[in-house]
């Protein structure tokens, strides 16, 4: 799934984003000053700890995504940044200034609400002008800025409409224009794509990224949709039970998840239980009951023989064949139990380690239009993967 | 929260709070207090008087349970005035509720299944009489039910009756007036609950072998029960203490408790007894209300 979204993504960008984005790594620069810092922030509701001693820094011009299941505390974290919740402990700094006690209307931070929260009694233009009016800007300046904003989100000429006369996509753009109109230091986006259908969502994601780099703003998006986070973010954080489990660029999160939780939450993954047999330099050999001997190339493994570990293996990194593969790769024999055709690829479930062993998922890209598939149910097949495909996850 | 915000918040609560303390709680306390006073031929006609808060202790020490004893003695005696009018009020209210339900349910049901574009208009026409004066509606019935009024003429003209029914000043007239006046209070909650009703449930019932009648009795009726209860409460409670309708349409034998209180205040000037009757009436009314509320809470908890 995620692979499909990412391969689909590349041609839609004007320039390859990878090179530009790769150079942008303020979080690795000790001299860089963060725009926002959470310092040991705690927020409780009754006896539920929504945010648990959390520290996090966001950098100027960063596109940051906060990913997690519902109820993990990500929305609370964002609402504390906007000023709608007050932390029970810790502090929040903006440009080095403590804003923990500053009310929402005095924060140079704006938010795009999940429901959009467009004022139903005001026209589109008045919605966009709302924040500017609160600043007491002169009228002509407000008019100019409103037009500029509507042009920016491609809604020129719709200023006189009421929000309920717009489509869902148009409403989202009005909400975006309204929250951008004040040129906030930081824009918060709460599930910005949740109400859009899939096609519109993909197009909007790229527009949002273009807008962000064009305006040079800092965005923080909260989402439970991993595709959305991975497509847009320079850096993302995976949150669980009020804590940040891992922070990093999307490819690092996907290819080198820090925990089993992250590995399973972001993308699809096979988890194989095993014990370390030997460690020779970067090469780790693992013995497992179901998949036999597995060799992994791990950077600086601190593993000791006999240690119980999990091996994570993404489905798209496994090759399926009828004939036994040659030497130099990991391989295991199995039987096909299930085939799920998904259009862009096919997900095959293979039982390895005999009856009562383990089902491994294998993703096969459908490179031709041929309907007759080379694999069928109950086929005896071989799975093989590179030593660089699997990864060691702490138990 | 800024200082100004906190002040504003306090003001928002304080204004209605103080108003209700003064015009609801204080009067109520006074009723309670006066119910425990003696009648006196003075102005105001009760003993002891409230003479400022400085003499509050003295005022409170002179409490007297005599009025409640009078009331109790009356109820226990064979020829009871107050007890009879309590019972009569409950009876009229119950009958009114029943008839309002019998007329209101089919009406509300028909409105709920009527085409959507009619429903708004139908609703307006049910509510419209409510916006015209209550007194006028009762007065209209005085004319209709009165001697040689249009009803008698119509019935005699059709040959259905030989002589005037002379309905005015009878219990029947009171009931007609009550049902008429309180019908919208029954129809509105019924309509609200029937309109929400998912009609595919009836199709499911039919699909499972229910006849239209069984489907109605086993699906529609139980699901509209909250509406029935709400409507019944809205009709029953004000009916018990209704004063104007029995006064104008009823006769000497249709004395309801509202009329009794009215007479004690304005004719007999026995305010302490009127207060005692009022307190007793509240007890009679509050009990079913509490039960209803408890049922509602239980249902909500179950849902």
């Amino acid at each position, binding site marked *: 799934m995620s692979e499909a979204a990412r391969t689909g993504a590349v041609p839609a960008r004007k320039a390859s984003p990878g090179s530009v984005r790769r150079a942008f790594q303020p979080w690795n620069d000790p001299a860089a000053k963060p725009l926002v810092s959470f310092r040991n922030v705690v927020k409780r509701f009754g006896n539920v700890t929504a945010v648990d001693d959390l520290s996090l820094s966001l950098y100027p011009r960063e596109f940051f995504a906060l990913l997690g299941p519902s109820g993990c505390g990500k929305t609370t974290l964002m609402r504390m940044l906007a*000023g709608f919740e007050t932390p029970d402990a810790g502090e929040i700094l903006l440009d080095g200034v403590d804003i923990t006690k500053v009310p929402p*209307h005095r924060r140079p*931070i704006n938010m795009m*609400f*999940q*429901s959009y*929260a467009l*004022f*139903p009694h005001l026209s589109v233009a008045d919605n966009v002008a709302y924040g500017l009016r609160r600043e007491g800007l002169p009228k002509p300046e407000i008019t100019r800025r409103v037009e500029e904003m509507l042009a920016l989100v491609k809604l020129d000429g719709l200023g006189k409409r009421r929000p*309920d006369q717009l489509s869902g996509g148009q409403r989202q753009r009005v909400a975006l224009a*309204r929250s951008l109109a004040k040129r906030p230091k930081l824009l918060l986006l709460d599930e910005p794509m949740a109400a859009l259908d899939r096609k519109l969502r993909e197009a909007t994601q790229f527009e949002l990224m273009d807008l962000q780099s064009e305006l040079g703003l800092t965005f923080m998006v909260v989402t439970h949709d991993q595709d959305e986070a991975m497509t847009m973010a320079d850096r993302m954080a995976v949150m669980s039970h009020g804590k940040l489990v891992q922070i990093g660029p999307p490819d690092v999160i996907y290819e080198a998840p820090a925990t089993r939780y992250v590995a399973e939450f972001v993308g699809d993954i096979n988890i194989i239980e095993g014990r370390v047999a030997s460690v020779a330099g970067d090469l780790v050999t693992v013995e497992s009951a179901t998949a036999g001997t597995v060799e992994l190339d791990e950077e600086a493994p601190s593993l000791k023989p006999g240690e119980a570990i999990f091996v994570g293996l993404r489905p798209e990194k496994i090759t399926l064949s009828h004939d036994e593969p040659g030497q130099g790769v990991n391989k295991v024999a199995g039987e096909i139990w299930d085939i799920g055709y998904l259009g862009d690829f096919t997900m095959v479930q293979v039982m390895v380690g005999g009856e009562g062993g383990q089902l491994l998922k294998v993703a096969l890209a459908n490179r031709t239009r041929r309907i007759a598939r080379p694999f069928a149910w109950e086929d005896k097949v071989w799975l093989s993967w590179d030593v660089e495909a699997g990864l060691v996850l702490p138990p | 929260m800024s200082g100004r915000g906190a002040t*504003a918040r306090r003001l*928002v*609560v304080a204004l*209605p*709070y103080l*108003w*209700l303390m003064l*015009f*609801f709680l*204080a*009067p*109520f306390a*006074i*009723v309670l207090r*006066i119910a425990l006073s003696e009648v006196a031929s003075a102005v*105001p006609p009760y003993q002891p008087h*409230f003479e400022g808060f400085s003499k509050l202790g003295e005022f409170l020490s002179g409490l007297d349970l005599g009025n409640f004893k009078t009331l109790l003695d009356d109820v226990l005696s064979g020829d009871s005035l107050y007890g009879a009018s309590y019972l009569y009020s409950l009876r009229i209210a119950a009958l009114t509720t029943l008839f309002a339900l019998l007329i209101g349910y*089919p*009406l509300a*049901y*028909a409105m709920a299944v009527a085409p959507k574009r009619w429903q708004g208009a139908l609703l307006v026409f049910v509510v*419209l*009489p*409510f*916006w*015209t*004066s*209550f*007194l*006028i509606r009762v*007065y*209209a019935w005085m*004319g*209709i039910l009165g001697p040689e009024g249009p009803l008698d*003429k119509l019935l005699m003209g059709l040959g259905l009756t030989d002589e005037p029914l002379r309905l005015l000043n009878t219990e029947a007239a009171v009931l007609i007036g009550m049902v*008429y006046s309180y*019908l*919208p209070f029954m*129809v509105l909650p019924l309509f609200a609950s029937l309109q929400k009703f998912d009609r595919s449930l009836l199709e499911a019932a039919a699909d499972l072998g229910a006849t239209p009648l069984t489907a109605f009795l086993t699906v529609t009726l139980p699901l509209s029960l909250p509406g029935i209860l709400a409507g019944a409460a809205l009709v029953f409670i*004000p009916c*018990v*203490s209704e*004063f*104007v309708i029995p006064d*104008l349409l009823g006769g000497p034998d249709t004395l309801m408790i*509202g009329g009794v*209180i*009215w007479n004690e205040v304005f004719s007999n000037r026995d305010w302490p007894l009127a207060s005692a009757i*009022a307190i007793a009436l509240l007890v009679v009314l509050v009990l079913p209300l509490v039960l209803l509320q408890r049922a509602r809470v239980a249902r909500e908890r179950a849902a």
Partner: protein
Amino acid sequence: MKRLGPGLILALVFGFAFLYLPILVLVAYSFNASRLVAVWGGFSTHWYGALMGNEALLDAAWTSLRLALVSATAATALGTLAALALTRYGAFRGRTLFSGMVLAPLVMPEVITGLSLLLLFIALDVERGFWTIAAAHATFGLGFACIVVQSRLMGFDRSLEEAAQDLGATPFVTFWTVTLPLIWPAIAAAWMLAFALSLDDLVVATFAGGSGAATLPIRLYSAVKRGVTPEINAACTIMIVTAAVVVISASLLMKREQLSDR
């Protein structure tokens, strides 16, 4: 939508006939030239002329209108505040007592409300008249107004207010520019309800007003007690037509607004 069966059409016809026939009879008799109810003396607007000469009744109508205006405004203002306190402030001290006091007048028998206010005004030694009735009407109107506004506030999307604050509006500005415009229809409805209740009230006004102020219902009541007079028929017809025009045009207006919003 299923078509209405004959039974249901009968229910509609019977129900609405029951609701409207008495009113129509009243209207018809207001144009009766004869003084006697039993005799149709031909069409006449005589009684409307007589009504216009009835100073006492016209005075009472004017008093009732002013009373309804004052008490509905006070009831709506206080009821809106009460609704805000009940929906927005969570658990504040004395909340249970407060909500009880707001709602109790809704189920309180009129005679008891009237009696208790009478006793209050006597105890405080206040002269009873226009202002005591206004206070009484504002008190029971408050509860109704509160219910109406509260139901609107409960369905209110709080993120709209958060959005306003996020865009730099202080809580006060947020209330004026977002909350108030959006609950305005409910406030208007609450005011209309309180107005109608005040205009219609006989019992509480009789207790709370004493001989100090004669409202329209008080005058009508004493006239009706004396017997049916065609003048009253004319007065009632005017009131019915006024109410009908106001209610129907208000609902048409609301419907058109809903349509244009779409």
